[in-house]
């Protein structure tokens, strides 16, 4: 049980990071972006690509399986993911925005998701890959609880980024502008905010977060082209459970989904784990469609 909770928190922290980006884009760009999780896949693989291309050594830091090369690769991958997001917005979403119903944008993102996923498959192949071949042994920290040093770093990084995003949204002009657009794009423009600029920054923030979340997932699980495809449902469930546009809600939603998933495996066969977010999502939609955490302070 203790182990399941710890695993749930770890998965939840990655979900939280992914869901923040998703909820921001859903709130500001005003459509459910099915390609968001594919940006996580893209980021994860770009980091792998950087490591492979420059044959960087693993150079583990202390008890970790990775070191500075991966951290550097993650930064570059975040940049490459931002580039991808901006290119897609320039050539697809930007061309459709304002001209078609927003469901057509959802549809376009659905097609873009397929493209990105298979582009990765084409470049990197379909098999599972890892950043390192180093093995790591879980350290017992309490009776019935073993944790790997990597997991601690993944968790801490995710939490640190979540807090950073929150502070950014609360305290910077750009963050304030993003929250303003999230409530009302027309009124934001009346207030002198350039929508184009906020949209651009939303992709930059969302893309970078997605890339880091993808790498963290790759570190703690593995890399597969379907990584994003399988993360999409938990992320949507987290964002909706948290109330769309509500960043704190998305974080709590991410942890909620992560915890329910890992605890549920104690009860139901592991093969059904991926369906858990769907059941949570249905329950939220039936009973609390504005989100469980819609009333949370300081979120939106």
């Amino acid at each position, binding site marked *: 049980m203790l182990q399941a909770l710890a695993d749930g928190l770890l998965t939840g922290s990655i979900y939280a990071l992914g869901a923040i980006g998703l909820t921001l884009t859903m709130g500001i760009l005003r*459509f*459910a972006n*099915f390609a968001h999780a594919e940006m996580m896949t893209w980021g994860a693989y770009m980091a792998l690509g950087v490591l492979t291309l420059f044959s960087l050594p693993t150079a583990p830091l202390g008890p970790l399986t990775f070191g500075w090369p991966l951290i550097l690769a993650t930064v570059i991958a975040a940049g490459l993911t931002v580039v991808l997001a901006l290119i897609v917005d320039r050539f*697809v979403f930007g*061309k*459709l925005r304002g*001209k*078609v*119903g*927003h*469901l*057509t944008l*959802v*549809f*376009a993102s*659905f*097609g*873009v998701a*397929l*493209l990105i*996923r*298979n*582009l990765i*498959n*084409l470049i990197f*192949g*379909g*098999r599972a890959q890892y950043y390192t071949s180093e093995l790591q042994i879980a350290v017992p920290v309490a009776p019935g609880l073993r944790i790997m040093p990597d997991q601690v770093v993944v968790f801490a990084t995710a939490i640190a980024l979540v807090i950073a995003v929150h502070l950014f949204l609360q305290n910077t002009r750009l963050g304030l502008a993003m929250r303003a657009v999230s409530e009302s794009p027309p009124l934001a423009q009346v207030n002198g905010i350039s929508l184009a600029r906020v949209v651009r920054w939303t992709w930059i923030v969302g893309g970078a977060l997605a890339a880091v979340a993808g790498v963290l997932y790759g570190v703690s699980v593995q890399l597969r*082209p379907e990584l994003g*495809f*399988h993360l*999409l*449902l938990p992320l*949507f*469930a987290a964002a*909706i459970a948290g109330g*769309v546009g509500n960043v704190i809600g998305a974080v709590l939603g991410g942890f909620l989904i992560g915890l329910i998933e890992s605890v549920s495996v104690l009860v139901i*066969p592991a*093969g*059904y784990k*991926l*369906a858990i*977010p*769907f059941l949570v*999502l*249905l329950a939220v*939609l*039936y009973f609390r*469609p504005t989100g469980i955490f819609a009333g949370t302070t300081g979120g939106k």
Partner: protein
Amino acid sequence: MLGVALYLVFFLIVVTIYAIVVMGLNLQWGFTGLFNAGVVAFYAIGAYGTAVLIGPARDRLIGGFEMPFLVGLAGGMALAALAGLIVALATLKLREEYLAIATFGIAITIQLVALNFEALTGGANGLIGLPRPMFDLFATPGGYNLFYLIFVLAVAVVIYAALERAVRSPWGRVLRAIREDVTAARSLGKNPTTTRLQAFVLGSAIMGLGGGLYVGFIGFVSPIDFLPILTFQIWAMLIVGGSGNNRGAVLGCLVVWGLWTASGYVISNAVPPGLQSQAGAVQAIIIGLVIVLTLLFRPRGLIGEEDVVSAHARDDEVTTPQEEIPAQQGQ
């Protein structure tokens, strides 16, 4: 020559079955504006539902009711409709994209059930040895396939005619009114949620019918036939032909399935066996490009929407004039 003819029959059966599924999706998206991101789920539910109902009795397996094929088809449709009802009830009153997300979720869930609920679905192996309707009446498989092609064509024609009637009926006019403007439809005294629910459930049932027909044709069912790519293929077929237009839907099926089959043929001959995953990726990229490029450059598809549907088809979110133009309201 005979080989080509046999293959053509095979190809046309698959295209016709997909055309039925596309017509179901067209009812949801083209005529009602509901986004279904999990088409494959409803297709699979129809297929597995039919399979379980018509299958021979077997040890340790649930199902195997040995029912007549048509009963199995009806059962599969009913199950697909039920699944449609569950997601629609949860989402139709909420933001439009919630339906998209929930249908995406049901597709993932059904895939897991197909793989893991072995007692019902046979797991990764699937259910084999399913009876093919009236198979014994034909001397050769080729003759049977020809018969089955005529059968599915007849079903497709019936669905086509029924849908054409439905969308031209008062009910169909309400659907379009809702798609263009929910508020206006409500002011006409129509309950948009109920009508949308009906359209979504009916569309899901039609997709389930497609799944059942597929099972009757190949005589087995396995998760391999229900991969997520199918949803994208069906969507590509719909928008290439032009959503809101059933003739376009049929044309789209021919074009997209032809493209898929041809690209598969070329790639499997050109690509070394070690790179099959990449080869599949190229095919999927083609489907993705078809979807995105059509949306960008030919949003009305090859044929476009018929006149029954007003020209506002894809402009539904252009700012609606609000309080300033009462002059229009009387029209």
